[in-house]
């Protein structure tokens, strides 16, 4: 998937989970920007992304993520078999 597609798909997921159609994702977006992004919703984001992108994250990979930009890069890496 192209990076823009990944952002778009992820944005849909965020809008669904947080029930907010106005969410716009940027590389720098993180839990600091979205008040309801707690550990509970964090699990939902991971699980929904795996479902949407057809990938599976390792626990270790998820530890290093600091923002949406990192996450998008990880998704693309896994889609390319990395």
């Amino acid at each position, binding site marked *: 998937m192209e990076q823009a597609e990944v952002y778009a798909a992820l944005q849909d*997921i965020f809008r*669904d*989970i947080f*029930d907010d159609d106005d969410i716009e994702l940027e590389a720098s977006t993180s839990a600091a920007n979205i008040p309801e992004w707690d*550990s*509970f919703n964090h*699990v*939902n984001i991971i*699980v*929904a992304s795996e*479902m949407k992108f*057809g990938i599976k994250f390792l*626990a270790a990979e998820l530890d290093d993520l600091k923002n949406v930009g990192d996450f998008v890069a990880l998704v693309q890496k896994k889609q390319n078999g990395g």
Partner: protein
Amino acid sequence: MIPFDLYWLPENEGFNKDLKAAAQQRGTADEVLTRFRDLATCRLDFLKTAKLDRTFQTIWADMADTDIAARRIRIGILSSCTVDHLIPAIRVGALRRGLVAECYVAPYSMYHQEVIDPSSGLRKFEPDVVLMNLDSQSVLSALPFTSSAQEVEDTISVRVDEIAGLWNVIQNDIGAVVLQQAVLDRSQPLFGNFEARVPASPTRMIQQFNWQLSNRAGEAKALWLDIERWARQVGMKNLSDSRLWHQAKQEISPIQSPLYGDLVARQLAAVRGLSKKCLVLDLDNTVWGGVIGDDGLDGIVLGQGNPLGEAFSAFQDYAKALSRRGIILAVASKNDDAVAKNAFENHPEMTLQLSDIAAFEANWFDKPASLQRIAKDLNIGIDSLVFFDDNPMERALVRETLPEVAVPEVPLAAEDYVACLADAGYFETVGFTSDDTKRTEQYVANRQRNEIQSRAADLDSFLNDLQMELIVGSFDKTNLSRIVQLINKTNQFNLTTRRYTEAEVLDLMKDDTVETFHVRLKDRFGDNGIIAIVIAQHKAEGNDAVLDVDTWLMSCRVLGRKVEEAVLNLLADAASRRGARAIRGHYVPSSRNGMVREHYAKLGFEQVKADAMNETAPTEWELPVAGYEPRFTNLFEKVFTDGTS
């Protein structure tokens, strides 16, 4: 891709749009619940499930005062692991069945205290159902592998006793139904295949624990949620993500929450008597391959010598077995009646026989019309039906015209039919008695009675010819299961829709001031089973005494046979023996019991309380005992089960 989802529910491409529209609409409780039931009845993933739940909660918050007692069910959840992510799905599963589930989640792992402590949150919540979800690590500790089978069994027994002790408190002190979830076996074997030979091995211990616990649940009348079976269906790796266990103590993955919620909701619906009662089958390409009208007896595909034929036979076998456990079978087919019946009578491979089918509609009218006829003939609600038809257009038409009928998405392959029907879980039950096995016989016999009745010259001679015999007794242990079942699932001919647990019924039986009757009706066609249940209490009011009827419910199958009058005779007799001045009756309107609004009026009672402004208010009625003449005594041979007459 979700490995296993609610595949028997239809897709709704426009779900997001429909949900947005629903968020803007309001209405009566019935309208809102119907709207959300329809929204929930499609193949939702966990994100859509959560959205649906959120939207409903917002709308329902404005309607919190609405009186919908019968549609509300309170479920307290006691768990040793994280379950918050499953709650929206339970509520959506409940909405799918027209119920509003209110959930209380006990503080993590405090399940013991929540049950025992009289001032706990669980107690204050006053649950109708308590779901207990214990994970394997919290419930069993490891034993040395060299432990004997006896030592293992004894250790397990101690834990089972503890849990059964909690059930006892839940049932008797809290007054709730227990729903015990099987322990999910997340262990990995240490001995490989040899695990089964080592009683103290982890897998073996959990198996034995579930075995003992489920047996105990049978004795204690606790309900069982067989999550282990679903782990097999879905695949353990799909149902339970070990990563999420380590991260958040979630035993069940959020992806599978819609399935879990539906499983729990099925049980809630069963507790409320809302499980489906009748399976309506199409014929062509549903119970045999091909079209009987075109292919004839020789051309349809059924039975031995053909893989597809075997698949249809297996489906017929399953349907027949369903009827053996008390599910009514009916047929709705677009065919010539004689042509369709000919297949049943003359095709050598037909497992299903005409005597298995309680209502047979083969005609050229539309299927919704046939379904309505079936419901009317069988005297059951249209919402008791499941409609199984291979044709997507027929399914769509029924869904649109009769949304209360359950219409599963039938798989393309006939070999998948049985699994689809089983997975959809329409027929969950909270009990099983021998009356259930005789249900088909009873409905077929009823069909015969109705046929005779329509030909009878007048009602009186028909009733006399029936040679009816009433067997009456107070509630007893032998009939207790069936009595409790009827109290909890009768909706239409039910004057007050009061539900009682078995423990509560036992208390009533011990109460000297309470008269209880169960009435069995036999006639020349057979045994109708228990067809009336009455609970009445002698109440002193100053110098006066009345016999107050708390519960009066009857089977719709025996309407118009003067059984109502016969029951009234029983009440009048009981009332006069204790010197009561009058019999007092109550009618509490529900969405299902409109048919008995004038029940007491028809019996000659006078209305003593009514709210002219409010049609949904309960009404009160009285009939004086002095001067009461027993009615229609010539029609019934009466026998009392305790030997008196």
